[in-house]
């Protein structure tokens, strides 16, 4: 995976932020569901995203496929920008305005004092002139800054216009196979809906393509005329996968596709996704909270904690050398079917307020080893380096 440096990623996420706001005035609440997350996904790989519930992994998936609009940051898909937020630029502008306002006030105070102190009227006039000049310089600088930022904002807004044929290359599989299928539509209608929206009108073609995709996911063509309730959980999830596959996507976001399924059915669905990836060469972003499944299925894994990506590495590397304390605590919580090991297993509890001291040295995502990123500040990086050696 080392030669990935030069390769163009199929999906690139840069400083993505998504905030949810609720209430106003005193009760205003901003939830930072994703707070500055960056990663790349390369062609043909499975990128796993783990974390506890509420850490923002599902929000990340949904923002990428544009079910949500990003607050800030950019998303590139196959080299083209598909989503961007401009909260940061807006903030820049308002900050600049504030800065200039304060500076002008200070200048005014300073000069007013000097003016009232100076005896001659001439001096006063020249001082006033000087003040006016200085202020105008500041204002100009401000306007220039705002203009630049506004230009960027409008540019971001412009490129974010929907590029439908491109977006069709990205599809999503949802968690709950019961809730995500319309109970009043037959399987054929469910699967063909995407095709019809894509502009396929030839009924014959639709039927052949639906039948083909049903076969791919291990269902029979005669299932097409049935309704979702006639299927078992695993089969329903297959329908969900077929619906995503029918428009020939390059990239699939699978949001906990097996969490709602029974153990024996889970294996069927995981095997199916594995086959698809080897046969069709699809790229998958796999969101899950089950570590054993994600380890088995993914090439690279990102660990999320409260809107931040705390660690990112290849699956083997992550499980062999977990560095971030949260990753360690997550790994120590995995139960295994091994009673003797379980009796000795000690769970590490992650207490961010005890482990980290980020007051004057804020953390950043640092590549500590080739392909192994971890969020840490300078001191922690040193200690992690020691562990790795």
């Amino acid at each position: 995976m080392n030669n990935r440096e030069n390769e163009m990623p199929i999906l690139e996420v840069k400083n993505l932020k998504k905030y949810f706001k609720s209430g106003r005035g005193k009760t205003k609440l901003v939830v930072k569901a994703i707070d500055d997350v960056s990663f790349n996904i390369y062609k043909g790989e499975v990128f796993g995203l783990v974390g506890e519930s509420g850490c923002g992994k599902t929000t990340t998936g949904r923002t990428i496929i544009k079910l949500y609009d990003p607050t800030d940051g950019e998303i590139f898909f196959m080299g083209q920008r598909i989503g961007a937020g401009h909260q940061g630029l807006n903030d820049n502008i308002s900050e600049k305005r504030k800065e200039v306002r304060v500076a002008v006030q200070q200048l005014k105070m300073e000069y007013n004092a000097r003016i009232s102190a100076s005896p001659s009227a001439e001096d006063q006039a020249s001082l006033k002139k000087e003040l006016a000049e200085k202020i105008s310089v500041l204002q100009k600088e401000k306007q220039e800054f705002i203009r630049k930022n506004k230009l960027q904002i409008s540019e971001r807004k412009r490129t974010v216009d929907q590029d439908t044929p491109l977006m069709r290359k990205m599809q999503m599989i949802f968690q709950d196979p019961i809730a995500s299928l319309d109970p009043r539509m037959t399987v054929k209608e469910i699967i063909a809906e995407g095709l019809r929206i894509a502009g396929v009108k030839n009924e014959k073609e639709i039927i052949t393509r639906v039948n083909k995709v049903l076969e791919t996911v291990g269902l029979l063509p005669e299932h097409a005329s049935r309704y979702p309730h006639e299927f078992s959980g695993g089969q329903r999830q297959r329908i969900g996968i077929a619906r995503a596959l029918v428009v020939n996507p390059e990239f699939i976001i699978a949001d906990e596709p097996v969490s709602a399924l029974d153990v024996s059915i889970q294996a069927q669905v995981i095997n199916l996704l594995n086959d698809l990836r080897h046969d069709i060469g699809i790229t998958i972003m796999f969101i899950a909270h089950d570590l054993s499944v994600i380890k088995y299925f993914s090439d690279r894994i990102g660990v999320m904690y409260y809107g931040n990506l705390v660690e990112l590495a290849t699956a083997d590397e992550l499980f062999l050398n977990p560095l971030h304390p949260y990753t360690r605590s997550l790994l120590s919580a995995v139960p295994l079917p091994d009673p003797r090991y379980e009796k000795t297993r000690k769970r590490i509890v992650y207490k961010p307020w005890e482990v980290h001291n980020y007051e004057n040295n804020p953390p950043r995502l640092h590549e500590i080893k080739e392909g192994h990123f971890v969020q840490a500040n300078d001191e922690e990086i040193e200690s992690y380096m020691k562990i790795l050696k």
Partner: protein
Amino acid sequence: MANTPEKILHVQDLTVSFKTTQGMVRAVRGVTFDVFKGKTLAIVGESGSGKSVSSRAIMGILAGNGVIDDGQIIYRGQDLTKVDEEHYHELRGNKIGMIFQDPMSSLNPIMRIGKQITEGMLLNGNRLKERIKQKSADSKNILSEKLNNLDELQRKATKVKKSDFGNKAAELTEIKLDILKAKKEIKLAKADYKKATAVAKKEVYMDYRTEQARVNDQIKALKDTSNQGSNNAKIAELKEQLIRYKKVTKQEAYERAIKIMKEVGIPEPERRFTQYPFQFSGGMRQRIVIAIALTASPEILICDEPTTALDVTIQAQILELINDLKKERNLSVIFITHDLGVVANMADSIAVMYAGKIVEMGTSEEIFYNPRHPYTWALLTSMPDLDSKDRLRAIPGTPPNMLFPPIGDAFAERNEYAMKIDFERQPPMFKISETHSAATWLLHPDAPKVEMPKIIRDRIERMLNTTSKPEEAANE
């Protein structure tokens, strides 16, 4: 600590069906297991295997269309299948507690947490009634014993009626005589019980009145003395004491609730007491549910997939909590789950269920290190563990439709090791060791020797190797 723990619950041949418009759904088809004091029994199986239904039958909360066709649930000498709804109240919650899967839907969203925890204590808080019950317990036990006797006789009678051989008529008449005798005895015992209750009632109320008089006198004495200010507090305390003699007061319930909330690990219980469920996270909600179950200090705790809706770290916390409570309170736990990984840490013994039957039963080491039933193998192989790389061996097909339970082994259809006999006759439980048994024809002496799949063998070997070096295992 005795070597052989006391058996508290014994389930024998439990059979449960549900009446539906399509016919009878045979959810549980003859399940036998024991629960011992201070031990955990894990019931593992997929959805629809009947694991939840069995536990609900024990709690007496089967859905309205559910019927217990056959079998016994013996709790402390009492057959729970024969207990009527009115008397079930004394057991349900008080002796057998239950935790449900989804903590959001088992809590009332518009009721404060504190009220939900104390509700049961306050409703069952009549101490005088409790005392009456205690005093008349002896005669009640005699009565229930007699009733059980009668039951046994009646069952014997039906058995004799059904059997073909032997001197049927003579046996029947003998049993009938016994039944008549038993019925007469029951009549007497009932009268005794009634009398005993009446006596107990009188005694308890007399005690209460004397207590009342004593406290009132004290209050009067306090009131008569001149310094009113300091006495008011004392008077209030005395009054509270008197009420507490009669019933559980709100103050008392509050104190107890705070204590239990601390015990289940809820920080700042005083503040949390007045909050609503939506203000709690998933793990905290599950702790509340556990706290509610614990208020009545039950002997048996049934946990119906308590961690399925939670993620890994929270799951580990809740499992640890249940384990700690079990040790502290010497609880017996019935732990229901579909995830074999979860129970390795919890269970003393494990029952694997499939299509309404227990297919394998043993201690947790026996099940994990020496599984014998193909379904257990399949369950173990279908989940990836942290080291697996090969293709997963999914179980093909789906569980059978229990409207039409299969004639032979229910797992035969999905079983690659199935033999001809599996489709014709149900396998009995073959004993492997004193505690370990499995229902598969593969264990029959005439069956071909079949090894367990290589994946499991490798995994078990690996597990046994790593655990001998615990430090290495921790690093992995």
